[in-house]
């Protein structure tokens, strides 16, 4: 399908499912906009959303629970200078929309109500995924059977596997954006994920391992390339490694991070600090540093919403801007910010397609999509061989950052000591802490093995969750603080 065909189909579909049932057409949209624009409002938008999601979960060998959720509504936003007025309604009917518009515009000084005389036109979007419906892509019985197979595979691998928890989730979200500059955009967004956690036990010691994946596709994804069962194998492998783990070291040392999901380093250390809102307000440790060298020359980091089928990708963001591949750091130099429309306008920059929101009931903010570092030239074996004593961390749980001080953490769930250039004994999980503005200056080697994560990341900011991706090649960082217990 060409991009234009996809967008016009998505627009058609959004109109049919979101607007038509409420009798809302262009003239009604004009009326709602007019209610806001008469006040001294610079910009306004309407965000219509309809989403269906489901989840199935297995424990103790059986799928015992499942749930389905339907959510719909409209968010109405008016902006005057740096002021934002926001209201929403979970009823898509004209009177409720007009009430929401009245509430939203109250931030601006009054004026004559007018018709907006919108020059309504279709915006452009990308075509990174098909408008699939995950919920209908597999019979319910087959969803249950898939989870059962995952469980059986995990148990088959090792008798020390005592507990398997697996969950399968899918959603389809249809959105329609109407902006005060007349641009209309729509998207139909599928998303699936499968997670497995196992608990293993040996001589009274219990450990855990987790794996999973997903993307903007349907459940067929898990049935191809043996993916679902590979998650089970990976979870078991990690848990068994942890059974042998001894206490992690404490202190500052050389750290090698594996490829893929350890890219959460970039998300926490760099990504959040480069979001436009924090930089416009001067609350980020990176504020005012465009053009400065903030990383080693070997580091180029991008936020790329355009990778086909990825969990963090979007055909168009929640403000109707197509996503793009934005260079954040180019050969060590800070080049760009992650921007939504409001912050871009206030900073005199172009929006980067990063205006995202959890739902119609939340305000859009600049948010990451897929954030990763480009590959370097060194084979990973060479990077390992270069370290005499240090930590090799390959799997991580979550992370967090204080954007003002720049301090960030991320917690290893699978790590090893490095002894004389070789992988040594596994160590227990430990939190690693660093300083965002200088951690990438300590990058000494960049691997040639760039990998993106498997598609399970969720980013939280101001209470809003959105799906994201991360990635990186193997990295050697000279000096990070590892929070183990062994001095």
């Amino acid at each position, binding site marked *: 399908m060409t991009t234009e065909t996809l967008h016009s189909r998505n627009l058609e579909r959004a109109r049919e499912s979101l607007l038509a049932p409420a009798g809302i057409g262009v003239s009604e949209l004009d009326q709602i906009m007019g209610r806001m624009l008469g006040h001294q409002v610079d910009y306004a938008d309407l965000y219509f959303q309809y989403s269906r999601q489901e989840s199935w979960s297995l424990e103790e060998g059986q*799928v*015992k*629970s*499942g749930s*389905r*959720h*339907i959510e*719909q*509504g409209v968010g109405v936003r008016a902006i005057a*200078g*740096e*002021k*934002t*007025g*926001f*209201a*929403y*309604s*979970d009823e898509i009917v004209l009177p409720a929309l007009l009430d*929401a518009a009245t*509430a*939203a515009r109250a*931030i601006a000084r009054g004026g004559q109500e007018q018709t907006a005389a919108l020059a309504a036109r279709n915006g452009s979007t990308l075509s990174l995924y098909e408008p699939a419906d995950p919920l209908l892509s597999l019979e*319910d019985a087959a969803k*249950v059977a898939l989870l059962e197979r995952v469980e059986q595979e995990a148990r088959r691998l090792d008798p020390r596997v005592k*507990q398997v928890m697996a969950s399968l989730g899918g959603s389809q979200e249809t959105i329609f954006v109407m902006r005060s500059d007349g641009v209309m955009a729509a998207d139909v967004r599928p998303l699936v994920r499968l997670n497995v956690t196992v*608990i293993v036990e040996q001589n009274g010691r*219990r*450990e855990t391992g987790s794996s999973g994946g997903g993307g903007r596709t349907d459940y067929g994804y898990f049935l191809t390339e043996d993916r679902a069962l590979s998650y089970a194998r990976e979870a078991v492998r990690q848990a068994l490694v942890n059974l042998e783990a001894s206490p992690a070291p*404490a*202190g*500052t040392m050389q750290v090698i991070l594996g490829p893929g999901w350890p890219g959460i380093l970039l998300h926490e250390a760099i990504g959040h600090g480069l979001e436009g809102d924090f930089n416009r*307000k*001067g*609350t980020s*440790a990176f504020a005012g540093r465009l053009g400065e060298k903030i990383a080693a020359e070997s580091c180029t980091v991008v936020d790329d919403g355009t990778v086909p089928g990825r969990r963090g990708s979007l055909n168009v963001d929640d403000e109707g801007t197509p996503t793009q591949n934005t260079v954040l750091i180019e050969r060590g130099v800070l080049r760009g910010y992650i921007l939504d429309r409001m912050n871009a306008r206030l900073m005199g920059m172009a929006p980067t397609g990063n205006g995202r929101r959890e739902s119609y*009931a939340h305000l859009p903010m600049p948010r990451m999509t897929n954030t990763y570092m480009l590959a370097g030239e060194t084979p990973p074996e060479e990077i390992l061989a270069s370290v005499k004593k240090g930590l090799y961390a390959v799997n991580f*749980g*979550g*992370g*967090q950052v*204080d954007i*003002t*001080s720049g301090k*960030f*953490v*991320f*917690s290893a769930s699978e790590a090893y000591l490095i002894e004389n250039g070789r992988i040594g004994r596994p160590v*227990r*999980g*430990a*939190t690693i*802490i660093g*300083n965002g503005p200088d951690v990438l200056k300590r990058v000494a080697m960049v691997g040639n093995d760039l990998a993106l994560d498997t598609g399970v990341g969720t980013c939280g900011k101001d209470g809003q969750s959105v799906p994201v991706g991360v990635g990186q090649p193997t990295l050697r960082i000279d000096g990070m*603080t*590892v*929070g*183990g217990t*062994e*001095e």
Partner: protein
Amino acid sequence: MGAIIAKDQETSSLEDLAAQALDIARRQGASAAEVNAGFGRGLSVTVRKGEVETVEHHRDKSLSVTVFFGDRSGSASTSDFRTQALSEAVMAACVIARHTAADPYNGLADPAHLAREIPDLDLHHPWELAMEEAIDRARRCEEAAFAADARIRNSEGASVTTHDGTDVYATSHGFLGTVRASRHGLSCAVLGEDGQGGMQRDYDYASVRDARDLPDVEEIGRRAALRTARRLGARQIKTCQVPVLFEAQVARSLVSHLLSAISGPSLYRRSSFLVDSVDTALFPAWAHLYEEPHRKKAMGSAPFDSEGVETRTRDLIKDGVLRRYCLDSYSARKLGLVTTGNAGGVHNLMVAPGTEDLAGLLRQMGRGLFVTELIGFGINHVTGDYSRGAAGFWVEGGELAYPVEEITIASNLRDMYKGLVAVGRDVDYRHNVCSGSWLIERMTVAGA
């Protein structure tokens, strides 16, 4: 007070909806069903650097239903309350129940445990807060922060929020309970500059049921400024093993990890470092943690749990010994125990305060680390291993010596609970878990 007040329209329409959903479930052949229906509205205003930044009007509703066909169950929810959407949600739950496995532990709470009377816990104090008044309060709060210290040069803003909600829980075996509750907040977060290019941010906030109980807006602003200013010039310390004092607002998280480890699902999955630990001494003998669900106006109060089971004051840790787990009906049946009225969590988990205030605890510690902020998720609930990012102050001679950052603190939760030296009387009542500061005997601090 005490008068019989006619049910307002909101409550009766939610109760009607719940009854409708139960009725649809019954007609679909469900042997049992439960429904949660809720409605809430609120206003949230943020002022930054003296100017209005956001005004958000909230209005949310949702209904969720779980149906049982014998031992099978399915759930669904919808934010659309029209009859058609309601029917679709119930039917979706029924479809799911056809595919889930039969589980003999499934089902509604035992009628014998249901709350018979629903006490008024004084939780509902709607605040008719006009936008202009909210803006004025937030503005004064932030101004007080800027005025408190010259190093405070920037702000994330001050916010005033109010929320008012009604929640109905109804079951096919005759339980119908409605709780109306309000929640109002005031918060302020500001940034300071140390003159060397370093910035710090900190905040203060209040959260109450009744707006008349809010502290002076200026007080919150001043405290936010002082908390931020005292962090300026923070540095790393060397790796060491020292006593650690957790300020009350972060000590609460240590209680949350305990609660998660003794919750039903963690226990029957054996995914907790505290399996089989009831009747064992987890804490020193003086430690006392108890649940007090019926505290008037408290943030965690609830007359019944999320299955309609009666809540009451009960010990959790007494004489240092774990007396019980936190169970809902399902996990209790699986473990061969009885529900503890903890479906949906605990309700006002109180840590009995000790005799010292914060200054006294600092003197008691003498030399060590005072932690005021924790970041990250480095807790392994299966092993109890604990490793988190921290910021706070180095303490010498019982006094704050200098601010500290970019460090981690690590131990195992079992050792931390055993090594609890004292709990302060500086109780933080802003949440469902209420505790003073915690002094822990020894942890590994990783730094330079």
